[in-house]
């Protein structure tokens, strides 16, 4: 079935213009015979996911506050932490504090950014866009997949920006190209797991509560991680909490991948945390997403 074909814009897999969404999918080589993909076929999935991913990314790119939040503030926070605590941590640990603060800022930015994604999703639910998409012949999986893809792109961009600033002030990869690439994927894995969690909270709670609660928890996770201070600088009684929380593992894994040191266990623990969070949240999130589109 073809929906809302816009005469001026020609044939395409789908396009978004000025808030009006037109999704068209048809065979390009179509000689008279009306042969189109079934709406849930794999051939429809890829182009439709791409279109929707592009749509989400475009929305973020045009929103000044999103840009500030995703690209500017993490950089400022990195510089601040380096000025305030950098020297002290370097004296205690014997290596530059950047090997902890750069990873921590990429991870923190990944979490912060997923709030934007979740809030955007709620907005689209309230505006009825999700319901609209549900009644259109759009592949059922493309909505969720496009959100995952957009989150991945956003996290990659933030990570690269924070990394670039970190390298300007002295951060270096010392473990070769493979470790560096692995370093880049840790925030993505970590961020996607957090995004699942935050999206789940967003789908089931009020907006304001979500924003402020996530901000507070986020703050605690940052301040009680090995990226803020070395674990042995915390009071003894809180050290177990600091040592085993997900951000510490991720920071430690990334420190190992850049500076050197133990990698295997922190990396496994990070993956376990990410897998655990995702396993718990994925079903309620998908159910909530479906409900947002159908109710």
């Amino acid at each position, binding site marked *: 079935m073809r929906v809302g074909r816009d005469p001026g814009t020609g044939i395409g897999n789908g396009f978004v213009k000025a808030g009006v969404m037109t999704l068209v999918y048809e065979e390009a080589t179509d000689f008279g015979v009306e042969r189109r993909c079934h709406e849930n076929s794999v051939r429809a999935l890829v182009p439709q996911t791409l279109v929707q991913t592009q749509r989400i990314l475009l929305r973020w790119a045009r929103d000044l*506050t999103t840009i500030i939040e995703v690209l500017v503030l993490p950089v400022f926070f990195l510089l601040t*932490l380096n000025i*305030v605590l950098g020297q002290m941590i370097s004296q205690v640990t014997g290596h530059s504090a950047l090997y902890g603060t750069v990873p921590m800022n990429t991870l923190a930015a990944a979490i912060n950014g997923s*709030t934007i994604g979740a809030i955007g999703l709620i907005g689209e639910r309230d505006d009825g866009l999700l319901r609209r998409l549900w009644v259109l012949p759009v592949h059922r999986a493309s909505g969720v997949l496009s959100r995952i893809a957009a989150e991945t792109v956003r996290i990659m961009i933030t990570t690269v920006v924070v990394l670039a600033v970190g390298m300007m002030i002295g951060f270096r990869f010392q473990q070769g190209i493979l470790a560096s690439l692995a370093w880049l994927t840790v925030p993505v894995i970590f961020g996607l797991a957090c995004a699942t969690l935050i999206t789940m909270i967003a789908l089931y709670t009020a907006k304001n509560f979500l*924003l402020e*609660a996530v901000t507070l928890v986020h703050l*605690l996770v940052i301040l009680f991680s090995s990226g803020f201070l070395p674990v042995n600088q915390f009071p003894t009684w809180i050290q177990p909490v600091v040592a085993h929380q997900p951000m510490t593992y991720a920071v430690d894994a990334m420190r190992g991948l850049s500076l050197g040191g133990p990698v295997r266990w922190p990396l496994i623990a990070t993956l376990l945390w990410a897998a655990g969070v995702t396993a718990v949240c994925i079903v309620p999130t998908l159910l909530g997403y479906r409900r947002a589109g159908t109710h």
Partner: protein
Amino acid sequence: MRATSTAGPHLSTRAQWWVLTTRFIAPTLQNGELALTIASSVVFTAGFYIPLHQIMRTATLGVASSYAQYLMPLIGLEAITFAAISTAFRAATDSVQGLNRRFRSMPIAPLTPVTARITAAVYRCLVSLTVAVICGYVIGFRFHRSAVYIVAFCVLVIVIGALLSFGADLIGTATRNPEAMTPLLILPPLIFGLLSVGVQPVEQFPHWIQPIVRNQPISQFVDTMRALAGDSTPFGGPVTWSVVAPTLAWLCGLAAILAPASAMVLSRRA
């Protein structure tokens, strides 16, 4: 002579202000807002004091009787900033939903809705300040001067909170983007807070940034609050004009910027 036919229940500006204020305050008990305000003070206290008190203790040995005494003013400021920020969210929501336009078509003074939002913010600031002081007492902070100074301490914090919430309100009304407000306004206070004398003495910072750290508003506020709170005998300077003047200057300056800005934002057609 007034036409009695159009009378109806005519509300005074004060009554209107009260109605709008309760509109913001009443739901806070149910929607978890009050709990969040309380939690924020606890989170700031725990988040700053627990990680930092060991590593910072040596740096502050010569200037304060304990790190709790040294840190508490900053915790108080961060907590009321968080409380003030939620105003921006409400203002932006009112702006987006067209409520402000609606208010403008009604016989309400233009400043009344803003004043009501700020009153609600002051209420949240009072809650978070109370909790912050209680948390401060738990970690070891004490007021060392007479009741007058304690009142002055609290009034100063509330005035800062009121001005911040006024500013946040204007930003929220102007940007009309409720979603973006809270995360956007949380990192800047944190950055300013860490780059102030609230966490460590100015001598601990790199030389090139010391002038900024010493003179930025949060440092001045923290200095004044420390003087008002006092400290046990060897520490804690007197409350002198040279300590209080920069704080008053910053507050007056902030008010001087906000007044014309509010005139501009509020008179704009929504």
